[in-house]
């Protein structure tokens, strides 16, 4: 018995010291993009920890964010890769599935850096992004966050992470300004989840509503997974709220809409900040028609570089919300690649300095990080019409698209 125990302990030590360390360095799970004939003399790797399965899972198959990362990697390699010390290196992306578990996400952010030796990372999405920050700063990992409202982040000053996206506090004023041009009573109902992102949104919305002269007559802060909204619906209905601002997870909105219809609450405008921005929104059928969500990109919006080419690259996506997610992912990798090119080095300090000095036009518009390492991207208001989202405000972005008023889904 003792011999086995000694053997087992010895095996563990051997595993730890030797064998286990090297194997995963070689499996670059993400993409193998084909550089068009460019001869590469090595690789430079970036990594990301994403929830491919579990509660936030998109699956590795059709995940639009990852499709965006991979397209950007492809484009970078097609134009010659990244040059470091005179050598042309192929950009490689390592993707890890954190199964929607925050602990696994933290482990992966660390192991991508320590074991896979990726030079920089794209941050994990949603609330995980916030949790990755202390690790990224502690281990000095240059990181670009993808797709989270920048004002919900703390200051990134003197840190190693950067964020370029819309500001949640720009959305509410824009929406309210827009809504005010229609005969809507200035009474609003706010329904949100109690996780940090949704709460942040809700707070910003309420503040903006007050400034714009709207009265918040009903509100609710509910845990994700709620299916019974009857209290807030009856409050909103009895107090005559004609604008509803919803910041709920995608699984919570279908029961909300069904209950609103059943309880005969018919707001004139329905804004779905988080749940309206998932590609599966139209699956609810008629109920989903007319919801407003904020866009940062759309193929029909003038002034966005490369919009048509990207729309074609992501043509297989079910709708423009999916394409927008891909373009958001594309931006993150694009910014990283641009910094790597300017740094021409894999040294984290040089990459970090290059990121801080970013100043150019990227797929979501101009990017120049301020002292807090944030760049604000311009939002637009979009509306779901017949299963596809179209821009409706500001007018110059909307082009030929018209806002359908009042909310068709519950009529």
């Amino acid at each position, binding site marked *: 018995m003792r011999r086995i125990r000694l053997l087992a302990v010895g095996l563990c030590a051997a595993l730890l010291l030797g064998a286990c360390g090297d194997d995963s360095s070689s499996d670059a799970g993400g993409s193998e993009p084909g550089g068009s004939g460019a001869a590469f003399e090595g690789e430079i790797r970036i990594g990301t920890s994403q929830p491919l*399965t*579990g*509660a936030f*899972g*998109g*699956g590795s*198959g*059709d995940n639009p964010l990852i499709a965006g990362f991979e397209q950007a990697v492809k484009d970078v390699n097609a134009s010659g890769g990244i040059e470091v010390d005179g050598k042309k290196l192929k950009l490689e992306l390592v993707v890890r599935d954190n199964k*929607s578990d925050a602990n696994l996400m933290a482990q992966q952010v660390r192991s991508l850096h320590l074991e896979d030796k990726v030079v920089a990372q794209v941050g994990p999405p949603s609330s995980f992004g916030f949790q990755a920050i202390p690790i990224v700063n502690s281990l000095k990992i240059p990181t670009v966050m993808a797709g989270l409202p920048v004002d919900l982040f703390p200051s990134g000053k003197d840190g190693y992470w950067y964020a370029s996206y819309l500001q949640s506090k720009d959305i509410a004023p824009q929406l309210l300004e827009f809504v005010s041009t229609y005969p809507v009573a200035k009474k609003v109902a706010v329904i949100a989840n*109690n996780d940090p992102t949704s709460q942040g949104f809700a707070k910003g919305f309420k503040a903006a509503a007050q400034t714009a002269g709207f009265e918040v007559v009903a509100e*609710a*802060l*509910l*845990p994700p*997974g*709620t*299916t*019974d909204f*009857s*209290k807030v619906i*009856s409050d909103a209905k009895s107090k005559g709220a004609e604008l509803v601002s919803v910041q709920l997870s*995608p*699984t919570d909105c*279908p*029961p909300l*809409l*069904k*209950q*609103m*219809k*059943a*309880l*005969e609450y018919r707001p004139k405008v329905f804004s779905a900040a988080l749940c309206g921005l*998932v*590609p*599966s929104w139209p*699956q*609810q*059928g008629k*109920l989903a028609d007319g919801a407003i969500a904020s866009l940062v990109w759309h193929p029909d919006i003038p002034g966005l570089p490369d919009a048509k080419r990207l729309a074609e690259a992501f043509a297989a996506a079910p709708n423009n919300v999916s394409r927008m997610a891909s373009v958001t992912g594309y931006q993150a990798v694009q910014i990283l690649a641009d910094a790597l090119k300017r740094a021409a080095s894999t040294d984290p300090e040089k990459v970090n300095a290059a990121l801080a000095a970013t100043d150019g036009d990227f797929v979501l518009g101009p990017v120049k990080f301020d002292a807090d390492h944030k760049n604000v991207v311009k939002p637009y208001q979009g509306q779901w019409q017949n299963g596809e989202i179209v821009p409706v405000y500001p007018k110059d972005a909307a082009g030929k698209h018209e806002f359908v008023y009042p909310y068709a889904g519950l009529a």
Partner: protein
Amino acid sequence: MEPEVLVAGVLAGGLYALVALGLSLGIGVLRLVNIAHGEVIVGGAYAAYAVIERTGWDPLVAMPIAMLAMAAVAYPIQRFLLHDMVMNGPQAALVATFGLAFLGQAFFLGVFEADPRVLPASYAASGADVLGVRVQLSYVVTFVVASLVTVATHLVLSHTRAGAAVRAAAADPHTAEVLGIDVRQVYALTFAATAAIAAAGGVMAGVTQSFGPSSGIGLLLSGFAVVALAGIGRVGPTFVGGLLIGVLQSVAVSWFGGGYREVVVYLAFFLALAIRPTGLLSRGVTA
């Protein structure tokens, strides 16, 4: 407290009762804590989805098909895999169902993708006025389905030979075997029945809410909450327990605001277990 809150809670409880009944019978009869119970429920929803996509039928019409499908999947799993494991102690089978839960999620993810789905029904978003209170028709339908299933299960267990065999095998499998009851068969059929009940719950969850590959765990936890309140393996108390949970949630949200929805339920559930470990509504027989 407004009557709407109470009524909405009771109706929502119907779904909880349906979700919990299969889990409770599994633990009570088979001594199996089925970690994959949530996946069975979601499987029922997906099965109905697959049928509805092709035929356009109402979910209630697709329900028997979904129930049969999940029962057909569950039967061999219990008969050929789990039965022998349970004999090795409860933990082995629990871990096996854990593995099955992963397989279930993988199947849903692979075949149906990760997007949340709903089961379309003409009454999904309709309301009705019942005794002056406005209610959601889909929850009324769920409540009716839950009641019917509960009554049917109770009648089968208490008034049929098969039911007697199940109760015998649950109480003392060895003696039952000696008396000529094929315990393996009885257990397998019971497990299949719990899967069918779960599938019915899945279909109604699909109509009233949305579901995705990883919706299982939330449903499993709701089931546990009811089992704790009601005691294991008792049909009537499980139904009442479900309604109680529904009302507790409704009241919690109404009085304390949304954030306390979970706290109140689980606190009640914990206290219930502490005061009466075999379940508030059971007759005190130790498990």
